[in-house]
């Protein structure tokens, strides 16, 4: 126990205690002066009718609906391509992983300029290939969120690709050989050997990918600051604004509980689906 103590002190005080306190705070009207009264479920009732909270939840789901499938497909495809003995694979792995270890601030600022409607390289490229009226990207309420999803997929795919690659190493080689001898096509081998063998990896990746999508914040904060209008405001930013800008700590905690519950729910649902398929 003495081995665990130093880390546990920090972990307990800075993670466990805040997580437990969160639930208490969400039931109070905790404010900037630190005075608080028990208000029961009032904060949650207020959330139900708060239109900007609805927007934040909708936007978070909208972002997740784009980011999760896109990242899964891209990172799995890249991992499959890299899982062959080709020249140049090491170089590509480095290139793919590099965005993930670069800071969000640097990434967001560079993409911000790259997305400039008139003078940015992305629209220059689009015009070059014949798109006459390229989107306004971060200046457009319709295109801002897709732009965010593009940047975050670009950033994350190397990370998930590494996880998929690690998972692919656990699929037994003999199974591929056997399938090939039986005359299975590449697609059949993928469907019947690779995908089932990858299931534990896919389960794990889906969970963290979803949690990471639900909590998306810093990228959006630097890239769009939630705008234009409220078109890219997400749950985390709602929490941040209510808590740190408006000092409504109790109300912000209630929104945090919702985020917490969403992440827990996803973990449970994916876990159950995975379990049922196992049976």
């Amino acid at each position, binding site marked *: *126990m003495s*081995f*665990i103590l*130093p*880390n*546990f002190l*920090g*972990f307990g005080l*800075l*993670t466990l*205690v805040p*997580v437990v306190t*969160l639930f208490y705070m969400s039931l109070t009207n905790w404010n900037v002066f*630190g005075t608080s009264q028990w208000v029961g479920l009032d904060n949650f009732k207020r959330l139900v009718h708060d239109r900007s909270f609805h927007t934040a939840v909708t936007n978070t789901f909208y972002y997740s609906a784009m980011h999760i499938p896109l990242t899964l497909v891209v990172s799995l495809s890249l991992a499959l391509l*890299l899982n*062959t003995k*080709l*020249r*140049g694979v090491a170089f*590509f*792995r480095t*290139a*793919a*992983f*590099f965005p993930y270890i670069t*800071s*969000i*601030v*640097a*990434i967001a*600022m*560079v*993409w911000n*300029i790259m997305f*400039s409607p008139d*003078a940015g*390289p992305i629209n220059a490229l689009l015009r070059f290939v014949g798109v006459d009226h390229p989107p306004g990207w971060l200046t457009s309420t319709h295109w801002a969120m897709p732009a965010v999803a593009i940047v975050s997929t*670009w950033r994350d795919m190397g*990370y998930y690709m590494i996880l998929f690659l*690690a*998972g692919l190493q656990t699929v037994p080689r003999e199974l591929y050989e056997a399938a090939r001898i039986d005359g299975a096509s590449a697609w059949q081998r993928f469907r019947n050997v690779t995908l089932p063998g990858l299931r534990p*990896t896919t*389960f*794990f990746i889906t969970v963290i990918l979803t*949690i990471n999508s639900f*909590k998306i*914040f*810093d990228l959006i*904060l630097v890239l769009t600051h939630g705008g234009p209008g409220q078109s890219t405001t997400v749950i*985390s930013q709602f*929490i*941040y604004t209510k*808590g*740190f800008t408006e000092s409504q700590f109790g109300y912000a*905690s209630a929104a*945090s509980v919702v*985020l*917490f519950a969403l*992440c827990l729910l996803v*973990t449970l649902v994916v876990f159950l689906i995975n379990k049922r398929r196992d049976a």
Partner: protein
Amino acid sequence: MDLSLTAPPAAPAEHPGDGTPSSAGQQNRMTPGRRIGQAVVYVVLLIASVALLTPFFWMVMSSLKSANEVFSVPINWIPDTFRWHNFVDIWSKSDMVTWIRNTMLLSVVVTFLQLLTGSFAAYGFARIRFPGRDVLFLLYIGTIAVPWQSYMIPQFVMMSKVHLTDTLWAIVLIQAFGAFGVFLMKQFYETIPEELSEAARLDGLSEYAIWRRIMLPLSVPALASLGLITFVTTWNDYLGPLIYLRTPSNWTIQLGLQSFISSLYDANYALMFTGLTISVIPIAVIFLLGQRYFVEGIASSGLKG
């Protein structure tokens, strides 16, 4: 139909089958279908590489431009003259020295504490039996799935009660005791044969000595993974500093650069790119040197999830 598979990816990819001289003797057994397949793979990887690296190319090139060249129409991918002077000007026009000093200090202290307490606790979880151990470890694992954004509010309130907000200590505290480090180290320790520590125990070594003299030296690769990942995470952290650090003299590089942009009276975006490039260079160097450890750390943390 010969494709040169030993040439750089671009060469065979462009025009399959237009008679590139063959230098691929050892690849003779491949069917034409598989060769075309490989060529397609290379084209895809090439396009993906360009897409992945273009933003970095754009950042570095823009850092060498003049102020109004960044937004020139049509796009100037490569500046007419390289303005190396940007890399001198940035130091006098911003507080980069302070930001880098703070960030470096935080990254080093956090990494050291994380390695020390993480490997210490991991040894406890991996090798010492005590009541409630498994429940406690489950609690550690469980919090990895809880986003920090959901408990940042109570954490901040607690920190302000003890007057630690707006100090570098706050960042040290929130970063240094992560569950991830304990998890990563524990997984590695479990691959070390139990007999080693048994033998040491018979020789009269204390548990502490076993950790110090047997486990630590054997776990250098895992320590390298954890150390590099922690260092980079702390260097890149934006939300923690954003919430906790108000006084400019406490700012980290990420926070500093972010405010630098909004304070640019002449909107000199070239200089912004210069600052960004400087902030990315240390990470790029660390990554290229220790790439193997990054990949192994990430991969092993994902496997057992």
